């Protein structure tokens, strides 16, 4: 039928960020062994405790098995065929942006993330990560005036070693899971945020991750610490060029919120998803976890996942502090042969803790989109509550949507609510909108936005508009 083909055309929007920056890079040779790890650590001039952290993780990783419980199918990853460190060549020490290779600045310009003093975004501080290293962080000085530390994790290792030593691996232990262990062994760069007691971070902080090299993996690590009564909103964006090989991305994100602190972590993930036949694309295996350590602390994850060939990601909250709050708002869009297995874990440990899960999965083409989530009420979590809502939308008749909710309760005095629904954009709904003069593409996009409304409302303003646009782009045939 005509409409079905149209839906197919519409969701096959070409990837806009697929260009490669031609830049000289310093790469180490392929393969992974203890020497690789020593080499990475040496290049980054790391203290001994960190080298030991890496080696310890590596030894554990060697004994672990790649998980296969997710609803994903992919060719086995050859971990010896990956380059674990790749950095654009530049001067030894960069003291200002003027010394950054213009090609790099141009790359981020093209991605809509201008970094130079004249052009930088006015209301968001940005840490730009290119392959294995952080290129630049804007507004560092302004933030420092408020006591806020925002820098690359490599810098933090040098300048704030006490905090790194105390918190790194405290939320996601090195042996937490296969991919977290791999990351702990070889992580190259990422962002570090520290918000001191009582400070409301004066602007949104943001990291932009760009994979450029085709044969190297990206293993970034983010650590955010919010001291008592502080708050921060952090945004994360990602893109990669189009290669016909798969690139492994295994990141770890750790958040720590102390008493009355709040962290809002928003992601727009648009890694290259591979082509229509499923060739190429990023394998996105990410461990994100927040620890609500303090009383009345709050961690809120929102994510818009549109890219990657494979997404395996469960941003979670450990609700330790009494009356702490965890939130997870997610939109995951898959198309063609993309596969996503994503969701969250809400682990209620402290009393009167609360969590909310709102997940919206949209599957088009031949893609598979699964929600997988765990809600656990520990024995001390009396008076705790969870509300989960998992909705799936199918576009066309070849896509699949699954929901796997896991519920465990050891506490009779707690409440868990779960709602789920599946719907399909039907030809008749589209025809209804069209028969009122609304263009086909706008009709699809209206229905998808409507479906995602609850989640978009949770995103920071600038991001919400971007997310809406991104979904529209993915769903529009002519624009782009």
């Amino acid at each position, binding site marked *: 039928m005509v409409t079905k083909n149209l839906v197919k055309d519409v969701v096959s929007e070409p990837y806009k960020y697929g260009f490669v920056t031609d830049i000289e890079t310093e790469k180490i040779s392929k393969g992974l062994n203890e020497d690789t790890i020593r080499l990475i650590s040496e290049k980054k001039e790391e203290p001994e405790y960190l080298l030991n952290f890496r080696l310890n993780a590596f030894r554990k990783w060697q004994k672990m098995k790649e998980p296969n419980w997710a609803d994903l199918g992919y060719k086995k990853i050859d971990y010896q065929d990956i380059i674990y460190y790749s950095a654009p060549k530049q001067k030894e020490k960069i003291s200002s942006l003027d010394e950054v290779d213009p090609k790099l600045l141009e790359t981020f310009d093209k991605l809509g993330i201008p970094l130079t003093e004249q052009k930088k975004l006015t209301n968001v501080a940005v840490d730009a990560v290119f392959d294995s290293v952080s290129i630049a962080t804007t507004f560092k000085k302004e933030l420092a005036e408020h006591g806020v530390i925002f820098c690359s994790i490599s810098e933090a290792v040098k300048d704030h070693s006490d905090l790194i030593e105390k918190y790194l691996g405290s939320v996601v232990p090195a042996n937490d899971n296969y991919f977290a262990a791999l990351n702990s062994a070889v992580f190259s760069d990422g962002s570090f945020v520290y918000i001191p007691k009582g400070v409301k971070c004066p602007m949104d902080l943001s990291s932009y991750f760009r994979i450029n090299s085709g044969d190297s993996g990206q293993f970034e690590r983010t650590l955010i610490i919010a001291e008592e009564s502080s708050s921060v909103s952090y945004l994360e964006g990602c893109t990669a060029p189009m290669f016909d090989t798969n690139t492994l991305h295994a990141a770890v994100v750790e958040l720590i919120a102390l008493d009355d602190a709040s962290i809002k972590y928003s992601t727009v993930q648009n890694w290259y998803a591979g082509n229509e036949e499923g060739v190429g694309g990023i394998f996105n295996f990410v461990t994100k976890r927040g620890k609500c350590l303090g009383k009345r602390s709050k961690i809120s994850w929102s994510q818009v996942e549109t890219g990657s060939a494979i997404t395996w990601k469960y941003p979670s909250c450990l609700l330790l502090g009494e009356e702490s709050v965890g939130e997870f708002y997610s939109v995951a869009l898959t198309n063609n042969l993309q596969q996503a297995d994503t969701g969250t874990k809400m682990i209620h440990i402290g009393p009167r803790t609360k969590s909310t899960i709102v997940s919206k999965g949209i599957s088009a083409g031949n893609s598979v989109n699964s929600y997988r989530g765990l809600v656990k009420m520990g024995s001390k979590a009396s008076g705790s509550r969870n509300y989960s809502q998992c909705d799936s939308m199918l576009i066309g008749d070849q896509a699949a949507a699954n929901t796997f909710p896991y519920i465990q309760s050891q506490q009779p005095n707690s409440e868990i609510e779960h709602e789920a629904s599946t719907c399909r954009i039907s030809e008749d*709904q589209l025809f209804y909108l*069209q*028969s*009122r003069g*609304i263009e086909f593409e706008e009709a699809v996009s209206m*229905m998808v936005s409507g*479906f995602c409304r609850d989640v978009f409302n949770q995103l920071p303003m600038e991001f919400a508009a971007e997310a809406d646009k991104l979904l529209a782009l993915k769903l529009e045939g002519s624009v782009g």
Partner: protein
Amino acid sequence: MQSKTRELDPILEVNNLFASIENLPILKGVTISVKPGEIHAIMGRNGCGKSTLSKIIAGHPSYKITKGEIKFIGNDIQSLEPEERAQSGIFLGFQYPIEIPGVSNLEFLRVATNARRKFLNKEELDTFDFEDLVKQKLDLVKMDSAFLSRSINQGFSGGEKKRNEILQMALLEPKIAILDETDSGLDIDALRIVASGIKKISNERTGIILITHYQRLLDEIKPDYVHVMSDGQIIKTGGSDLALELEKHGYEWTDNFIKEQ
């Protein structure tokens, strides 16, 4: 009035139209011509092709025209997308208006109205101006403004859905409106409201096709022509009396016409 309109060019001409869905023929040579100011009623048994005809005129992609033509203001519209037909002034009031969760009725009405206004080279309306406009139109169908903040047709009663259709017609000011069983599922009061809405919206420049089973809508809106459809064809055309005859004798009576043919 009829003698005057006779001299005008038709808004809609359907000439010897054959159409099928998944190779199953539904329309087998339908001809109908509607001039400005005319009200046509199409009656007939369920499955005779009435709804198919209305959907084909609006451009539903599932149906294939195998022969014949549809002209709107003199131009063949077969190559036009449904949205282009709507923008140029063709309106279909659905028999079963579909629910679209998550999409606000107000926003939908605004986007639709602006698409039509853009076609007419009229200024597009912002949220505030549109709210003013829509509130006037709500009165026509006696709808509460609470309808606007809900999702399209979601949780609407049968009558509310039909009134929402007429509200859309009021906003889009079409040149031709095809109303597919707008009267079905309405109680007497709702029927009066809907009928009076239709009458207020239409004028001497508008053409209307009412698809219905019942005389009671035609009591409210008197048609100039009544067509009886059977097995994909119009088997008899007459004045408003024909509907009364039909009411009296039932559709079995029309079987004779087929035999006559």
